[in-house]
């Protein structure tokens, strides 16, 4: 556990000493802020329109603003996660520092979990800065905070799964660009894989849909913890880190 923390601290240091962390946090906050503004505008516009039509149903902030915002964030993370994970192992392999880690008295699993955890903390920071926008919602409205918290839990679980996949892909190459590009492609595939299920109900389409990373976020966006979806994410995290460990091992036997 101590070793995991040492590695995690070092990785966080690398993220925050270099511009990587700041660029990612700023970009993410900017895009998140834009979506927040967009959905807020729509919320206000729809509200006005409904008032003019004379409908007096109260509009729900959670349903009309937070839910689409979080769903968008879920898709947005597909674009950001490759940028977080691409350097994790590829850089160490290129500069040779992987030899230091591999010849130190720590286990591969501790290195892997430490690195994954650091990536997770960075993503958490990105979410946190984006979430500052939501303070306005609480200031001027009164949304329910529980579904919001569950939505963020879902985002974190989803990110954990994608980060595990990205960590694995980063061990496969010395080249960060390749690691990033492949991770991005895999993320995209894991998103669009559910689209055939819109017009097709055969077993293959449903299977593909079940494998979609984004699909499993729907319940969290609604503010519901569906154990099926939570288990899916946790399973992907374990699987990704497990493959990372196997990949590091095969690195030794092959190279």
């Amino acid at each position, binding site marked *: 556990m101590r*070793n995991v923390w*040492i590695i995690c601290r*070092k990785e966080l*240091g*690398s993220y925050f*000493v*270099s511009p990587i962390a700041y660029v990612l946090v700023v970009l993410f906050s900017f895009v998140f802020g834009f979506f927040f503004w967009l959905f807020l505008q729509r919320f206000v516009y729809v509200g006005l329109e409904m008032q003019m039509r004379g409908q007096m149903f109260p509009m729900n902030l959670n349903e009309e603003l937070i839910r689409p915002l979080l769903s968008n964030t879920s898709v947005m993370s597909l674009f950001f996660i490759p940028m977080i994970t691409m350097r994790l192992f590829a850089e160490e392999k290129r*500069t*040779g*520092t*992987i*030899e*230091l*880690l*591999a*010849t*130190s*008295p*720590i*286990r591969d699993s501790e290195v892997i979990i430490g690195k994954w955890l650091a990536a997770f903390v960075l993503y958490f920071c990105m979410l946190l800065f984006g979430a500052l926008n939501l303070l306005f919602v609480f200031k001027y409205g009164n949304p329910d905070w529980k579904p919001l918290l569950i939505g963020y839990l879902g985002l974190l679980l989803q990110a954990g799964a994608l980060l595990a996949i990205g960590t694995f892909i980063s061990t496969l190459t010395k080249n960060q660009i390749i690691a990033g590009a492949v991770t991005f492609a895999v993320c995209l595939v894991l998103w669009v894989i559910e689209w055939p299920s819109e017009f097709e109900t055969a077993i293959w389409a449903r299977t593909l849909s079940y494998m979609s990373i984004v699909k499993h976020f729907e319940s969290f966006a609604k503010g519901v913890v569906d154990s099926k979806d939570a288990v899916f994410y946790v399973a992907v995290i374990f699987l990704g880190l497990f493959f990372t460990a196997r990949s590091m091992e095969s690195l*030794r*036997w*092959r*190279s």
Partner: protein
Amino acid sequence: MIKVQDLTKRYARTTAVDQISFEVDKGQIVGFLGPNGAGKTTTMRILTCFLPPSSGTATVAGFDVLEQPLDVKKHIGYLPETPPIYPEMETSEYLKFVGKLKGLSGAELDKRLDYVCGRCAIADVKTKLLGKLSKGYRQRVGLAQAIIHNPAVLILDEPTAGLDPKQINETRDLIKDLAGDHTIILSTHILPEVEQTCEQVIIINKGKLVATDSVRNLQARARGAESVLVEIAGRNGTLEIPIVQHKLEHVSGVSRVSCKQQVDARAVFEVESEKGRSVRGDLARAVVESGWDLNELRAAAMSLEEVFLQLTGNEAKNEAEAPVEVNA
């Protein structure tokens, strides 16, 4: 301290290390010598548990590299060919990180940090970014990182590669300095380095062990026959080479005479004699009795370089010669 038995490492198409066996005792400095691609780095990587062997066993400080890698790693300090540094870290930050990785903490870590900074002469760059350091400093930080946890065994892969002559000397002195506390294996293809720093040499070529012996024994062994260089000058400004050669060949015990160089009435001959026979006295007498001047008479010591080329065969010649000229 280190025991290697029939160690073999096969890659998909090639055998990098082929049935190597050797032992290193505590406190020794051992030079691991071979042309580029001989399998030096692979062997070192196996000893540091970076690569598993295909067959055979290796133990370090009594621990098997396959069975107890964590114990082996605790007792080893390793400097790979390129120092494993993170350019975005500061020197002391980096050394602290490595120290923690190796299991140090608290006051002990601070103490070791100060110690290695002093020992490796990097105290003045403690707060500099590693990426901004010169090659010589990086190498020394690499060494500092290898000794920070006071390991019993130090494994250094070409510790002087890419340094300038002054830095090379400093690094060699540092390594010699460290020998008292640690058992050291260092690999190199630079021969004077081995002659200067090591007591013991292990020569490998194409993955195979060619020789393992002390530096002195190796030189003697490869020499086989004793040979001396004789410089002779004629009295009256002339010197007939064939006559001198004939005369020297007839001294008892001499097996071969060759003229190395001739300037005016002076000439240098290399005289080989049967092993174990000292012919110097007879040679000197023969020269003087013939009316020539004896300017110089000395043993022609064979450099390790010649031994090395002889042992590794001629194909190694081209690869080995270039760096020797540059660094000698």
